[in-house]
């Protein structure tokens, strides 16, 4: 099958600093692709290039068949993005946020109505629907944020550390949500610092100081590094990193 994300020697420089160094990989449709790396490895920078938020310095990449240099606005129609920093409007209610984002993605009134109902029921937010998002606990905010990012049924959803700072129970629930959208055929591109989450991915790549040092399914990676867990694999690779903050 045709890959939905293709990157070839994709790089990003900030002045003399190389944040992302010639990364190459492909992501298949419907795949859950884990994008691992220590702090400062360049995950967010790479993801922002794929989302059309940042123009690469060199290399090529296509997302949903569109070029990351010239067709950024086309890409944006086909993806959902949940940034590392929580970015729903805290001064709008749950329902208002859902309707706003659905609205600007061009959903019809009927779709908006129906989808917000389903979403609120699915997340058990019936009592919070009319509360300001700022008043919700972090775990709920993250789940809401994710659900809003896939409201318009994108081909691919990019999640940048969606479970950062969230308790283990909520993290499990979050991954249930990820599986649900993957089952609907949405490709998931996710970064995380939790190695148990890496195990949930179909394939993972591990970035060290801007370069991809390993890329395979979790079992194969463990085999390759003769490790018992992804934790060990990651440690083996990230140990040599210079950038870790």
């Amino acid at each position, binding site marked *: 099958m045709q890959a939905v994300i293709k990157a070839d020697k994709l790089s990003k420089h900030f002045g003399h600093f190389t944040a992302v160094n010639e990364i190459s990989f492909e992501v298949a449709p419907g795949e859950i692709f884990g994008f691992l790396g220590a702090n400062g490895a360049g995950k967010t920078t790479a993801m922002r290039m794929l*989302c*059309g*938020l*940042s*123009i690469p310095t060199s290399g090529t990449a296509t997302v949903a068949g569109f070029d990351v240099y010239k067709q*950024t*606005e086309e890409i*944006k*129609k086909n*993806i959902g*993005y949940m*940034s590392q*920093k*929580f*970015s*729903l*409007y*805290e*001064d*709008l209610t749950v329902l*208002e946020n859902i*309707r*706003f*984002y659905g*609205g*600007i*993605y*061009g959903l019809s009134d009927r779709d908006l109505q129906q989808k917000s109902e389903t979403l609120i029921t699915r997340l058990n937010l019936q009592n919070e629907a009319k509360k300001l998002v700022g008043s919700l606990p972090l775990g709920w905010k993250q789940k809401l944020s994710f659900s809003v990012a896939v409201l318009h049924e994108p081909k691919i959803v990019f999640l940048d550390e969606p479970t950062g700072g969230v308790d283990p129970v909520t993290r499990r629930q979050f991954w249930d949500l990820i599986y649900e959208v993957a089952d609907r055929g949405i490709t998931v591109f996710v970064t995380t610092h939790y190695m148990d989450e890496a195990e949930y991915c179909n394939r993972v790549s591990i970035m060290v100081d801007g370069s991809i040092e390993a890329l395979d399914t979790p079992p194969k990676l463990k085999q390759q590094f003769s490790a018992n867990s992804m934790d060990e694999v990651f440690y083996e690779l990230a140990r040599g990193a210079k950038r870790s903050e």
Partner: protein
Amino acid sequence: MRTLKFLLQKEFRQIFRDPSILRVIFIMPVIQLMILPWAADYEIKNIKLSVVDHDHSEYSRKLINKITASGYFELADYSNSYKQALHKVEHDEADLMLEIPTSFEKDVVKENKAKLFMALNAINGVKANLGGAYLRTIIQDYNQEIRLEWLQMPRMNIEPTIQITSSNWYNPLLNYKYFMVPGILVILLTMIGSNLAAINIVKEKEIGTIEQINVTPVKKYHFLLGKLVPFWILGMVVLTLGLFISWAVYGIIPLGSYLTIYAFAAVYLLTVLGLGLLISTYAGTQQQAMLISFFLMMIFILMGGLYTSIDSMPHWAQIITKFNPVSYFIDVMRMVVLKGSGFWDVRYHFIIMFTFATVFNGWAIWHYRKTS
């Protein structure tokens, strides 16, 4: 269109939920319009006048009477020595000197023309300048009176005139607040407009929500329009509030039409908001935005002709005022309020303001980056 609807809905909700915005919009204008005109009141009484009367005629006495009767002047000295009068000015005992030549009465009667000499004490420039303006107005008034007097005499049909070079289309004697309040209203609208617009987008940058917008297919002009429209409406509300206060507190009713003011304000607000949006595309933090906007406002206000008349600025400064939107609106306000100018009289102001609006907004849209 539908996108815009959602964007506007969001902006309005956020504005009405933010007490600080509402405070700025409603309380600031009220307080400023109540206080500033009094603080910035240049209506100066007790201007010390030194008169040199070489004529000692009935006409010169009438003129001096009229001047002192106005209540603005205090006769510091009355002599027939230019030297003595100048001495007074030099020693700061007089702000203003008026010299009436020997032939004043004769000239008015026979030649229909008379010259007066006026010297200002530049140490307290504002006081002297204003005194000069008052004095000119009084003399002009006096001129009218003797004209009337002469007109009653059947044999004389040529009107005697006293030459005064200034063109006083406003009358500071009437009420100085008529002059200041419309100008302060313009400044207010400018500050509120540009600040709110500049800070708003930068705030989204700081919180990170702008990234979430930039990753959607929303067109950048839609997004900027979504910011422009609500603040434009709020600006019009502030203007209405300001005009209401001008009327209720100061009794100011424009000689011209409110329609002209609103029409011009509509274009002016586009300019100011466009400038705010432009600033926000350059600034990364709210502090930066505030600083840039503050810096520009300082220049705009100081060179806008509210406090210092543009005519008395040096040539290079006058050229700068041509690029200052504030000076055009102040001009239009004063023309409409004090002079009763209509749409046609300010047509060039409209064209220029429209150009400003187009440039600032176009530039903002061009410079706004959804992809960095």
